[in-house]
């Protein structure tokens, strides 16, 4: 255990050294009256109907709601994968709602870490290469990339499996690789979309334990989208959505 902590310390030093000292309890995410309207032929669907939330640095938030509640849409916008129809979205204090595609690419690269339900690893690449992929687009050279990828894999407890390909790993291990990938660029937030949806209960619990550990040890800001109340219970704060609106927001 102490060895693992040592590793974590080392990781914190090497991974986090460039993080600027930020104001305590600064809002990482701040949205104002966020709306997203999809036009499907004649009909308009209000996927988001004026969402205003604020998430502070270091929070562990679960966004819950039945399918069609708009939680996935909210997540794609928070993840800079899509642009809101109207409203304001400030990430780290910068309005990014209507930025150009390439600027959004950069923001996803540097500021957001994704964890998907289906892991979404490159099947033909090793764990190390998969974890290092975001650094490729950040222009980090190969040696430094491998060094950081090793550190991130250590952090999720997969330090021994750097050269395995996804099909040589269990589902839980694959999701750990995906989490290491999300951590690699020291993002402002980690967005996890049903991260345990494709895992059995026991492995799902392991992944949730890892998330909680990363949250408490590394102080990452974690936003979890799920429809499962048990998973959501483990977060510090639960935002419940229905029909494109926030219907409940309470700290657990």
């Amino acid at each position, binding site marked *: 255990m102490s060895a693992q902590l040592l590793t974590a310390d080392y990781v914190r030093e090497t991974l986090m050294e460039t993080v600027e000292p930020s104001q305590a309890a600064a809002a990482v995410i701040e949205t104002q009256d966020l709306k997203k309207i999809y036009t499907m032929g004649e009909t308009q669907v209000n996927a988001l109907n004026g969402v205003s939330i604020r998430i502070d640095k270091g929070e562990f938030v679960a966004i819950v709601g039945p399918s069609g509640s708009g939680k996935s849409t909210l997540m*794609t916008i928070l993840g800079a994968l*899509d642009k809101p129809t109207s409203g304001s979205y400030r990430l*780290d204090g910068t309005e990014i709602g209507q930025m150009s595609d390439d*600027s959004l690419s950069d923001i*996803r690269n540097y500021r957001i870490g994704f964890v998907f339900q289906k892991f979404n690893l*490159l099947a033909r690449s090793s764990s190390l290469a998969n974890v290092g992929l*975001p650094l490729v*687009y*950040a*222009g980090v050279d190969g040696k430094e990339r491998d060094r950081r990828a090793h550190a991130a894999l250590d952090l999720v407890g997969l330090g021994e499996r750097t050269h395995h390909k996804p099909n040589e790993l269990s589902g839980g291990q694959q999701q750990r690789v995906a989490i290491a990938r999300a951590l690699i660029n020291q993002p402002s937030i980690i967005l996890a979309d049903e991260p345990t949806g494709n895992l059995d209960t026991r492995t799902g619990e392991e992944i949730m334990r890892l998330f909680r550990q990363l949250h408490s040890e590394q102080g990452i800001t974690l936003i979890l989208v799920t429809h499962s109340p048990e998973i959501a219970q483990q977060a510090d704060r639960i935002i419940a959505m229905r029909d494109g609106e926030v219907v409940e927001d309470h700290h657990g």
Partner: protein
Amino acid sequence: MAKTLIPYAKNIFVAVCAVLILIGSVAFTPWVNFQMIGSLPADSATVGTTPPTGFDAPVGFEPPAGFEVPAAEANTTGSQGQSDTTFPPTGFPAGRLPGGAPGTLGQFLVPLAAVVGLGLAGFSAWKPRHSKFASGVIFVFSLAAAAYFIIFFAMDALLPIPISLVSLTSIGFWLGLVGTIGLFAQLFIPRLTTDESRAELKVMIPKVKRSGLSLSQNLSVAIDALMANKVRSALTMLGIIIGVAAVVSMLAVGRGASASVTEQITSTGLDLLTISPGSGTGAAPGPGAGGGSGNADTLTYDDALAIEQNISGIYAVLPQYNKSLDVRSDSERLQTTVRGVTENYADVRNIDIEIGGYFSQAAYNNAERVAVLGQRAAEELFGGLNPVGREVRISGTRFEVIGVLAEQDGGFGTDPNLEIHVPLTIGYRQLFDARRSGSNDDLVTSIVVGVTDLDNVEGVQTELTALLRREHRLEADEEDDFSVLNQQSLLDTASQITGIFTVLLGAIAGVSLLVGGIGIMNIMLVSVTERTKEIGLRKALGARRGHISQQFFIETIFLSTLGGILGVVVGIGIAQLVNASGVLAAVITWDSIVLGLGFSAVVGIFFGVYPANRAAALEPIEALRYE
């Protein structure tokens, strides 16, 4: 200062290119018009009754290139003046006067095209968010431009007809050129973000050197993707392999044919002038045609003597007389050309002696009855026996065979190996009956003159012509009653013909390369669809449009280049097979290899742009959700 300009590098690049093109096109236009008017009959240019719409009307609509050439020809043949290739320069200003003349419209359209192209390219570079339309337009134009490039530059470079000069005035060409530059500027220069948020973005994003993907990373990604489906990649490459192999081998065959024709001509000597009786327009007396016929009894042995005495800078004068005669050995009989020549004939014409020897000057002067047989003539008359020392009877007169000529390359239509050489003196005395009627002059079939200095062939030609006109007492208004054939001009004509032949072969092969390129594009589009999810993931992790398009682009280029290299290897193999078959000596030259490789790379670039752009344009969220 320089540093602040870096973010605008792309815009500056596009602007500089456009300005260069603009200057170039304006400077170029008068010349283009000059060329175009040159291909029009002078009277149509001055009168201006035939609006030369053929040049300008179709240009905005990118017709297949070939269409413009017939249009131009239709103009030329449409008016009753016969087309005149050496037009007077005075036709130039005249051509600009009538309202519909090509010059004015062309001068207006070409810069306009450049400006429009510049606007589109600049717009898409400046406003990336609204660049879809501009990119689309530019893509269409670049398609057209590539077609123009491929068809016209190849044809113009290789054909002696100035076709591309006409099409250069086309709006599509210039738009396409500018569009292509804009397109590549978009692809290769990092996109400029002009959002107001740019300044704030700098705060959010740590300063790291953005190197983008290195070539080796891209290559390994590309190779990975291609290895994922080996059979499909190989089949895709096959199209390019066949295309390049066809180009290389067809050009090799064409060049081989060209080389053998050239060699035949040069083997008779580039420094030789051939003087034939009769004006050049009459039927040229072939060597086997039996000589002096009707109007062609104008060249005599005395002319040869006059040349020898009066012309300087020549090393040989070879008067000769050919006649088809009956030749017999003891057992065989042959009707063949008997060539009465001087003793230095074989030497000057580079004909080797296989057995025995050629006749001496003494034998020539004494008009000895000696004969030298062509190789096939010897075979026909004596079978496998050594003919030297034996006798043949030419028109009943006995001749001693003193030698056999080595094998010579075939002439045009006749086989020189069937000929028999005798001294011209004995030929006149006993065989030819070559007196000009009503005089004592001996006629000749031709006189070959060897010029000492290869650079002076034309000078000697002029002197010869003047001398012979004096000798023949021709008035100033009379036509030459002889013709002087320059081997160089014959060579030029022949190489033009073989050049066209080669280009046609190459062009046909090029079409298969084009088809191969379409195959690549097809597969790449399939690949983009298949890998939609991967593209979405990469974008979610921070890949910009440029990263994605680069990846697919390099994949395409890798496919086409590897295919090109393999194609060159196969092409060389085919050429070797052709060589081995002995039909023709295929000649592989570096330029055909470079052309094949370059063409396959161009095909890769051209057909790679569209799939790459399509991949890059995928929305990350839709791509991620794609199943």
